[in-house]
């Protein structure tokens, strides 16, 4: 077949395909991505035309390389591939995410969660012991002003909660916690070093701070302050770090799949876990800014609230889910 005849015979088909593709794109832009579902017949015609364009592209690339027709067909084939094929599963709605995708991903990471909790717990105990044997640790962790306040029977948290309005505190706490969680997760790509560092640092600091409070007989006041928000906050930080460890594990121990593929799968799974944690940080910020510093609320109420939030979170994360949702992990 000569070039001119090839163009004469096949060009109307290419123009038609380009027109249909543009129409599909316009409709998609108007009605929202991917919801531009045309009729079954139209989809079938489009798929058939795409296949013809691909075959024409193969012919032109072989017989007429470098010509305008070859370039036009390559562009059309690429545009068709981009628009008409899709490897990842489409977004199946918030309800599916909350009740199926998030619990499924969370439950696949329980082993890593146990590891992260163990690292955090070990660091906490180490911090507690260090604060007992090293009195100078207080100055290092909290600074001399906070230590002077403790000697006078005041917690350093008072100044934070009395000088900053609750709305500003909520906003600051939420964004800070979200940043920490996202950094703990994304830092997992560095072979899990960043989440490990965050777990150890937070465990050491918490243990050290509680140890110092015990030394000054202020542990009761401190626990009263953190009772409402502390349990869930620590849980979420450990969960985000565990998700980051999942990324690191895929890099270090890819198993029998290519390292890139292992990281891609781990990235999708751990992202679901982190995304599922994000709304809880917003709830947490409101509790930390409004309920935790309120001295009029009884400690028992704060502790019950803290425990209730943790139970609610684990209830949502460990809820039974559909068996088929395991497929979510592989489809990003």
């Amino acid at each position, binding site marked *: 077949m000569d070039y001119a005849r090839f163009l004469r015979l096949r060009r109307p088909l290419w123009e038609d395909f380009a027109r249909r593709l543009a129409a599909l794109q316009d409709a998609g832009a108007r009605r929202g991505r991917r919801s531009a579902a045309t009729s079954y017949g139209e989809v079938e015609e489009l798929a058939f035309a795409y296949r013809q364009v*691909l075959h024409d592209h193969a012919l032109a690339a072989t*017989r007429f390389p*470098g010509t*305008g027709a070859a370039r036009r067909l390559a*562009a*059309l084939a*690429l545009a068709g591939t981009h628009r008409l094929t899709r490897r990842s*599963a489409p977004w199946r709605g918030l309800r599916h995410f909350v009740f199926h995708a998030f619990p499924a991903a969370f439950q696949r990471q329980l082993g890593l969660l146990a590891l992260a909790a163990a690292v955090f717990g070990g660091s906490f105990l180490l911090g507690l012991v260090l604060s007992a044997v090293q009195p100078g640790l207080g100055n290092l962790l909290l600074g001399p002003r906070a230590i002077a306040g403790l000697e006078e029977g005041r917690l350093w948290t008072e100044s934070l909660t009395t000088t900053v309005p609750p*709305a*500003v505190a909520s906003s600051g706490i939420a964004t800070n916690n979200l940043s920490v969680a996202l950094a703990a997760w994304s830092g997992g790509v560095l072979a899990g070093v960043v989440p490990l560092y965050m777990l150890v640092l937070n465990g050491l600091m918490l243990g050290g701070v509680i140890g110092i409070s015990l030394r000054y007989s202020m542990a009761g006041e401190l626990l009263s302050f953190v009772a409402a928000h502390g349990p869930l906050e620590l849980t979420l930080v450990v969960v985000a770090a565990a998700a980051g460890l999942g990324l690191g594990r895929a890099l270090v121990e890819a198993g029998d799949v290519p390292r890139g593929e292992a990281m891609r799968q781990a990235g999708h799974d751990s992202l679901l876990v982190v995304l599922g944690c994000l709304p809880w940080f917003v709830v947490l910020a409101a509790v930390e800014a409004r309920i935790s510093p309120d001295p009029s609320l009884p400690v028992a109420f704060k502790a019950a609230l803290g425990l209730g939030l943790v139970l609610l979170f684990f209830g949502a994360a460990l809820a039974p889910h559909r068996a088929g949702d395991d497929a979510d992990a592989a489809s990003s």
Partner: protein
Amino acid sequence: MADFDRDDEQGVPRPATGGAAASILALDNIRLELPVANIGSRCLAGVIDGCAVAVLLALWVLFCSVLALWVSGTWAVAAGVAGIFLVEWGYFAGMEIATGGRTLGKMALRLRAVTAAGSEAGAGALLVRNLVRDVDYLAGVPLMAIDPLARRLGDRLAGTLVVHEARAPAVLLGRVPPGWGAREVATVESFLLRAGELRDAAARDELARRLLSRVERDAPELLAGLGRPAVEGPVGMLRLALAAEER
């Protein structure tokens, strides 16, 4: 067979993208070359996006300042903190999800993030590739520099690539002299595509006349009846003779 006195393929137009190409196998195992964007385009798009983020942040701070003056200082600070967080973490992922893999920088340079198979990337993949930007600010550029597909860490994690958007302004010849092969056709099409941009009119017309002489030698009937060379000029005559059409 006509010969344009070239013994290599230098006369064949090359893709205008200038980047590396990744091969994918599409339907029926047909090979497609993805025009992968190289590190230069990626960094330039990143600089434009950085400017866009700075402008957005400045506008948000301005809005919050007005809010502080007219409504409430407390709520203005709270909204300011939340807004800055959302812009910093959400601009790239939000834009790419909303526009199918493009940010303002990518739109300016006609780039798009796609899956490694050339298809549209899903929201999950776009989120993953953008939420690890903090790490990529450190490691992204060296990784792109050593990777033939210019992938940063986020791309590897999400299984994505950034490609030049397909655009193929092309001149197609409706008539071809007998014996002309792909190289001759490609040379004439390429010349006609660029003829409007050539500043040296004398050189352009001279080249067109030489091409016309080859047409006359191989297929004189294509020039018969065209007449009016003084009106059309050599480039116009060449277009008419070969029924060239720009698409």
